[in-house]
């Protein structure tokens, strides 16, 4: 079959470039914004899962690590230890801290993981540095220009950077670790802990411990790590959602508007050709297919270019702005492809209506 739609589009390359460019811009915006949202979600989720513990005990009402606070009595740690099926208990404390680095102030969310007790060797030792040192997230280090061996000042206390690695970056802040002793010295929190992390004995399902743990720690909420990671990543990014939705809608409208205008003007310009095709035997459905094919062709090319550019943009933006974390999932690409196809179908409505009204007899006018 003669690819009329493609030939029509390629006949006017400037218009084609404008249309594909508009769709590409919309796709880039949609993917980048969505990948930023997914990136923050994934970082929160990964950070919680990387810490030791099958179960998280938090103060009732606590939703996440950064945007809500949690405080539990320090004595509950020893109370939890005595429950059957509990293997290890860890205390996790955290505060947003402002350090002085080379005369300027930098903020990071500093945590301290403490092994309270249990049978066998503790886990998560990679989160416990030596006294007087600090482990930094690589994003924070890149942002501040800090590297191993550098000094951070907090009041009269000084911390040497012991390690820089991927710990956790949730866009608004990054996580860092110091020793529990240093944390206590700075904040003087002897009677309370923020979170308790519990590891279950081998062969014990974490779910089965939830009721007894909740009973032992009054005023708490107990979650499996999976549950809390999901909840925290969802709640932690929840505030962005309305903004992200607005940007997604704007992107969709931009893409739709450009695509609609180009397809409509291309149809108007070739109204006579549609009339000719009607005269020589094209069915209305055949003509609609040509219009729709043009729209889908532009949309798909724009989608391909948009996906490629979005990856490139994320890479470059991540290098320039370290806290710009993105994550592009296959299912999100599939969803955006679906949105693109919907966009192309809507964009072809008006032109199809115009083609339907083309009078074939007009071709006899010279």
């Amino acid at each position: 079959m003669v690819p009329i739609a493609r030939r029509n589009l390629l006949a006017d390359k400037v218009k084609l470039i404008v249309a594909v460019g508009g769709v590409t811009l919309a796709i880039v915006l949609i993917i980048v914004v969505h990948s930023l949202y997914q990136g923050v979600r994934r970082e929160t989720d990964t950070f919680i899962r990387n810490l030791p513990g099958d179960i998280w005990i938090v103060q009732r009402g606590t939703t996440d690590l950064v945007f809500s606070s949690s405080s539990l009595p320090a004595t509950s740690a020893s109370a939890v230890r005595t429950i059957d099926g509990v293997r290890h208990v860890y205390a996790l404390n955290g505060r947003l801290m402002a350090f002085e680095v080379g005369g300027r102030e930098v903020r990071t969310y500093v945590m301290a993981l403490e092994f309270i007790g249990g049978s066998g060797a503790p886990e998560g030792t990679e989160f416990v540095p030596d006294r007087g040192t600090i482990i930094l997230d690589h994003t924070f280090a890149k942002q501040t220009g800090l590297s191993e061996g550098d000094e951070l000042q907090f009041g009269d206390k000084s911390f040497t950077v012991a390690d820089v690695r991927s710990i956790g970056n949730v866009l608004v802040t990054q996580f860092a670790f110091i020793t529990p002793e240093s944390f206590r010295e700075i904040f003087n929190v002897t009677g309370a802990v923020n979170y308790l992390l519990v590891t279950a004995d081998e062969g014990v399902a974490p779910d089965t411990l939830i009721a007894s743990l909740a009973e032992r720690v009054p005023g708490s909420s107990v979650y499996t790590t999976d549950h809390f990671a999901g909840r925290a990543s969802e709640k932690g990014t929840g505030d962005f959602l309305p903004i992200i939705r607005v940007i997604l809608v704007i992107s969709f409208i931009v893409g739709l508007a450009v695509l609609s205008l180009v397809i409509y003007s291309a149809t108007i310009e070739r109204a006579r050709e549609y009339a000719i095709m009607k005269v020589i035997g094209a069915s209305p459905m055949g003509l609609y297919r040509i219009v729709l094919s043009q729209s889908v062709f532009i949309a798909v090319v724009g989608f391909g270019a948009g996906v490629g550019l979005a990856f490139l943009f994320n890479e470059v933006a991540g290098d320039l702005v370290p806290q710009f974390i993105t994550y592009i999932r296959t299912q999100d690409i599939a969803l955006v492809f679906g949105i693109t196809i919907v966009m192309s179908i809507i964009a072809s409505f008006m032109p199809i209506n115009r083609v339907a009204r083309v009078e074939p007899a007009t071709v006899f006018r010279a």
Partner: protein
Amino acid sequence: MTAVHPTATEASVGSENGVILDVHGLTKTFGSGRAIVHAVDGIDLSVRRGELVLIMGPSGSGKTTLLTLIGGLLRPTSGTVRVNGREITALKERQLTKFRRHYLGFVFQSFNLLESLNARENVEVALNFAGVGGRKARRHATALLTDLGMADRLRAKPQTLSGGERQRVSIARALANDPQLILADEPTANLDSRHGHEVVELLHDIAKAQHRTIIIVSHDHRIRDVADRVLWLQDGRFEQFEQPDEHQSAMLDTAGVLYGATPQATTPPPTARGSSGRRGGWFPWRRA
């Protein structure tokens, strides 16, 4: 001149008395009340297979409207059009499209080629619409264009073709689906003398060698030389000139000066229906 081969289909398809087109009481009015315009006013016409009929007349006489009515591109106010025995005025839009695809070919004054397609694709696309695709369509389009002397211009875009070449592509497209009736609207109007003559010869050869019926609407007097009948349309009616009076003779002279058309009154051929009486009917003008 290029060779035009007879087609197998032509030999097998038949209709009553070889009449391929039968128009009866065809009327088309535009507007209403005092502003009503009778573009076509009670036309009767019968055309046989293989006939080349030329319809002439001054601008605004209704020639093109008549052609669009015969081609099923415009619905008549009243009257009927039968092509190959089938009344097309009763067909629904979808049936009309299908009918046009297989039974009618169109040749236009301004060629009406699709600018983004090359010569071969312009012919191929008509085949595609009729459900013929792929290599078969490409081969057939190539053969048609080769027959019309366009073998070396298959991949040329319309804008790079001369007027005569464009019209050949347009004719090849009209022939693509082997139609029995070809309607041509001023096919030589945009061509110079040489190319115009070639197109006229080509249409004549197609009518005679392939036994296709061709109706041409034109001002071009050269076509009179090859037409089997010349009809004169005036104010939406075929004018009768059995014995031209002074006024009619003056009009013919004027037409001859203006359009080169000097029809002669003759008796109608056996297939031509006589005057309906009510509107004065029509008589063909056969060249001497």
